C-alpha cells in the first residue's frame, strides 16, 4: 500500500536555528496537510494545500513558519527561528481530493526537539 513519506524522522535543533521538514504524499493525492502534535495532545492543523495552493493557513504562526508545495506534489515546512515551544511531532497527511468523507492518510511524522 502506498504511503506518505516524511523526512527526517527525528530532528534536534537549538533555538533560533532554522529547521525544515519534507513530505511526499501518496501519488495522485491533491490535498496535503501539515499537522502539529504536541506530546499528550491531538494533532492540530497548521496548513492545508489543494494542489499547489494554500487553502487554510489560519493556524500557522506566519512570523516563523512557512510552507510550500511548489509543483503540487511534495511539500516543505520550515521554521525559522525555532523556539523551545516548537518541540512536537510534525505530521503530514494527504487525501485524494477534498471530500469530507475521505479519510486522511498520515506519514510517520518528524519528531522535533528544540534545545
Amino acid at each position, binding site marked *: 500500500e502506498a504511503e506518505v513519506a516524511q523526512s527526517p524522522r527525528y530532528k534536534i535543533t537549538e533555538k533560533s536555528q532554522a529547521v525544515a521538514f519534507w513530505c511526499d504524499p501518496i501519488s495522485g493525492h491533491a490535498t496535503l496537510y501539515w499537522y502539529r502534535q504536541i506530546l499528550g*495532545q491531538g494533532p*492540530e492543523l497548521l496548513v*492545508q494545500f489543494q494542489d499547489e495552493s494554500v487553502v*487554510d493557513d489560519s493556524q500557522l504562526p506566519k512570523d516563523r513558519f512557512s510552507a510550500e508545495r511548489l509543483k503540487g506534489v511534495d511539500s516543505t515546512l520550515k521554521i525559522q527561528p525555532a523556539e523551545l515551544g516548537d518541540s512536537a511531532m510534525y505530521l503530514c497527511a494527504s487525501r485524494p481530493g477534498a471530500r469530507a468523507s475521505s*479519510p486522511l492518510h*498520515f506519514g510517520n511524522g518528524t519528531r522535533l526537539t528544540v534545545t
Partner: protein
Amino acid sequence: AQSVTQPDIHITVSEGASLELRCNYSYGATPYLFWYVQSPGQGLQLLLKYFSGDTLVQGIKGFEAEFKRSQSSFNLRKPSVHWSDAAEYFCAVGAPNYGGATNKLIFGTGTLLAVQP
C-alpha cells in the same frame, strides 16, 4: 465551532476484556466521523469512519463504533482486547476550513490505552 471531546485521557483494561472509548462531538450538520490509532512514535492509522447509513460501523482489527446523533457520540468498541491494541486512540470530525471552501479533520486529545496481561 466544531470540536471533539474524548473524556478519558488514560484507560487500562485486561487482555481479553471488552473496551469502549468515548467520543463526543460538536457539529451543526451531519458529521463525518473517524477513529484513528497511533502507536508510539508513529503516524496515525485509520480504524474506521462514518458519514452516512448504518450507525454501527465496522473497522479494522476487530473494532467497531456506533454513531448516536441524540447523544452526539461516536464511541469505539472492541469485544476482546489484545495486548497489541495498546496505543493512543484519536476521534476526529470532518469540518470546513477557514473560509468554508474545503475541509479538514479536527481531532480530540486522545485516549491512551494500556493493556494488562
